[in-house]
């Protein structure tokens, strides 16, 4: 059985987090790293923006500045996400050769979200994959996911919400269009957490371990905890500069 390198849950700053996801994608694409699942958290808190989003449309920059919330742009498309200590984040990277992950994008979201759905179900939550890129419990979003394909790799990263301080959602500017469509009046009305769904808050690192097991099962890979390579470490150093730069964050 082929191996799945799992990078054990660690908390890092937003720029390092995005830099390491990209570094792993490059390294896996080059053939220097095996299929990889990385589990992580964010400190300080941050809003991550999709590749195509306009920062001023999505983020209340004053709110973020006052509360020490950083802003970082992802290399993946999709929507803005507020990352706090109540979230477990993952990134999953494999070669983009159609062997582990379907080449069809929408199918591949379903496939890579399957272990997350299984993890929530194992914890007792009635989770469903909601195309294109969400997972829901009770009709509310508990996990958002975003994918890119570059360097010859598929990188999907996403969130699993354990708890949320809803007062911090002021960091995101609500979009009239989207809310009207869903018939809700505030951003918080569309999301839920495992704490609300399960009536208890599971331990973040314990959930991370369950998630790793479920990824191993779905992709039939043997889970082995490992470390980043020297090549990845070198790439991260450069990439952190990009993610910290105003040019990158404010490019749209």
């Amino acid at each position, binding site marked *: 059985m082929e191996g799945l390198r799992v990078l054990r849950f660690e908390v890092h700053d937003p720029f390092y987090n995005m830099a390491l996801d990209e570094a792993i994608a490059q390294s896996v694409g080059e053939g220097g790293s095996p299929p990889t699942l990385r589990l992580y958290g964010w400190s300080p808190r941050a809003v991550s923006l999709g*590749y195509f989003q306009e920062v001023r449309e999505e983020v209340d920059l004053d709110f973020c500045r006052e509360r020490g919330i950083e802003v970082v742009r992802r290399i993946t498309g999709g929507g803005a996400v507020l990352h706090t200590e109540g979230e477990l984040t993952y990134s999953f990277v494999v070669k983009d050769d159609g062997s582990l992950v379907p080449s069809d*994008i929408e199918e591949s979201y379903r496939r890579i979200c399957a272990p997350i759905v299984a993890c929530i179900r194992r914890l007792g939550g009635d989770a469903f994959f909601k195309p*294109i890129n969400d997972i829901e419990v009770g009709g509310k979003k508990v996990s958002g996911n975003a994918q890119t*394909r*570059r360097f010859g790799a598929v990188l999907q990263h996403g969130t699993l919400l354990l708890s949320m301080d809803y007062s911090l959602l002021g960091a995101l500017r609500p979009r009239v*269009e989207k809310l009207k469509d869903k018939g809700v009046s505030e951003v918080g009305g569309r999301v839920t957490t495992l704490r609300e769904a399960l009536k208890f808050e599971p331990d973040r690192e314990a959930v991370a371990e369950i998630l790793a097991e479920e990824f191993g099962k779905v992709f039939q890979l043997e889970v082995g905890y490992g470390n980043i390579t020297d090549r990845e470490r070198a790439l991260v150093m450069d990439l952190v500069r990009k993610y910290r730069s105003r040019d990158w964050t404010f490019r749209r």
Partner: protein
Amino acid sequence: MEIIGVKKVKGGKLLKVLVIEERGTIKEAKISGDFFVHPEEAIDEIEGCLKGADISRVREVLRDFAKRRTVRTVGFTLEDIAEIIEGRGGRAQL
């Protein structure tokens, strides 16, 4: 003249296009939203192709682009971008 149009595409995602047009020529084009396109840089390149193009030729510009570059859009097509610019994508105040 500034043309701002948005279209809601599959999955409730927003595709927003801003075009600044002067005497029939596109001076500035900006495409934004929470959609997915692979490779992502294709959107930057499309903005570049639209800049300087005749506003009446938007559809052709996008078709030519799609011919020479493999672009995978998720839940919409490049035609949607043309429709927004032509004003048939439905306008909305953001």
